[in-house]
């Protein structure tokens, strides 16, 4: 479904990711792991169209989307829940969800919102609150919910558990698991190794912007190479 071939991307002269290749199949959860600065978020942002691609191709459902705008990618079924959530803070939760479904037919907004509220019932009582006033956990739920409003086929999600209480991390991962079981393809970047290996089907490990290891989550568990890359190049 998603294929990244020889991706090189960065910011201005700084190259964050070099010659990276991997693929994600329909309904699969693919985790991108690595130490801080390994290029995980840059890879995700390049797939979403927010980081300039210097080389390589990104293919989605057989279509080359490398040069496509973020808007075009959204229309094709790619949604992003970015690092730091980046909710529209001055808008209410309801309005954030409406923006999430902007690309779809307006008549389907209520139906999509009902599905999001089934996924995160806690958002029901926060619908008319400003997004900036939510707790970290609620913001993450709203960010995932906003991404799901467009009924995407590929969800890109960055740092699900960062700064959240364990109970909220559980809620978010349970929701992601339910979505994956429903056929959604998920590419996630995560710091919590234990969490991500429990959920992911396959793992891509980055080190200094390059592919260091790839395999199934089962193979990654206890693998010293994966652990080493995750710890920042220190071999266990």
């Amino acid at each position, binding site marked *: 479904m998603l294929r990244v071939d020889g991706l090189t991307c960065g910011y201005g002269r700084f190259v964050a990711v070099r010659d990276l290749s991997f693929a994600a199949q329909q309904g699969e959860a693919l985790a991108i792991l690595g130490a801080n600065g390994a290029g995980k978020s840059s890879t995700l942002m390049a797939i*979403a169209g927010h980081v300039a691609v210097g080389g390589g191709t990104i293919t989605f459902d057989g279509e080359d989307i490398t040069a496509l705008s973020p808007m075009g990618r959204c229309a094709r079924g790619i949604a992003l829940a970015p690092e730091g959530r980046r909710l529209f803070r001055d*808008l209410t939760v309801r*309005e954030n969800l*409406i923006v999430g479904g902007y690309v779809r037919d307006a008549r389907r907004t209520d139906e999509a919102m009902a599905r999001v509220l089934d996924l995160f019932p806690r958002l029901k009582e926060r619908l008319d609150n400003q997004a900036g006033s939510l707790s970290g956990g609620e913001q993450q739920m709203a960010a995932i919910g906003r991404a799901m409003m467009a009924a995407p086929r590929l969800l890109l999600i960055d740092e699900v558990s960062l700064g959240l209480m364990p109970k909220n991390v559980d809620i978010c991962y349970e929701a992601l698991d339910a979505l994956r079981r429903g056929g959604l393809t998920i590419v996630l970047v995560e710091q919590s190794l234990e969490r991500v290996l429990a959920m992911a089907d396959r793992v891509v490990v980055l080190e200094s912007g390059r592919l260091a290891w790839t395999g199934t989550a089962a193979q990654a568990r206890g693998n010293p190479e994966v652990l080493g890359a995750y710890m920042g190049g220190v071999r266990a």
Partner: protein
Amino acid sequence: MLHVELVLQGLINGSMYAVIAVGLTLVYGLLRILHVAHAGLFTLGAYITVLITNATGSLPLAVLAATLVVGVAGMLVYRLLYEPLLDRPPYVALIASIGLFICMEESYRIVFGPYGNSFDTMQLTQRITIGPIGMAAADAAMLVGAVVLLTGLGLLMKRTRFGIAWRATVTDPAMARSFGIDTIKVRYVNFFIASALAAAAGALVAVLNNLVEPTMGSVPSYKSLAIIVLGGLGNVGGTLAAALLLGVIEAYGTIYAGAFLDRDAIAFVFLIAVLMVRPQGLFAAR
């Protein structure tokens, strides 16, 4: 009774400031550009209203034409002046905007003459009385026009999908794009609406004063800049409140301090006093 009349007069002036300044703050909120040339569009709206009313005899038709033509002119200003400068530091766009404003004023002087134009027949000269309060129909039109326009704008921004997308674009354009919002279209619509508001204000002022002249945008220009600072830059609600407050303060100042301070000076004494205490403005969003 004096206080009622002063507050009313203040609200009439304040509503005119509000219509101009809200347009200015819409541009600032989205692009972080101090759009000084907005006042030039205000003057253009006033001229078009007078010319078309004199040609057709229909004020409503003239106001409609002014808002549409000036709305499109505003989009052209964005396309031709600001869009090429978006990657430059903000002062570059500010200098360009001041240059365009001067250019517009001089163009009006060349095209329409230096002495001003007026309606062939004075418009809205009737007097309206509601209970003990009486006012000129032109004053009432200013008040009602501002309420209708600003309520319409508020409903558009709060109640429609496009308005929500617009506010999302103001908050985080990159994220707005990733949800499929055409942020370029939002910018054009933003300029159309802001400029149409300026034109409507120009039309109302033309009716109120029965005079349009090339430099009529100067005072609204610096006063609306003062208002958007007072309201908290980019804050639409704050701008509205600051405009009405300034109108009322001017009305009171004219009576109680008019002997030693000009009306415009009162506005700036107030601005300086507020900024000394709250440099972020009275109603800063954050």
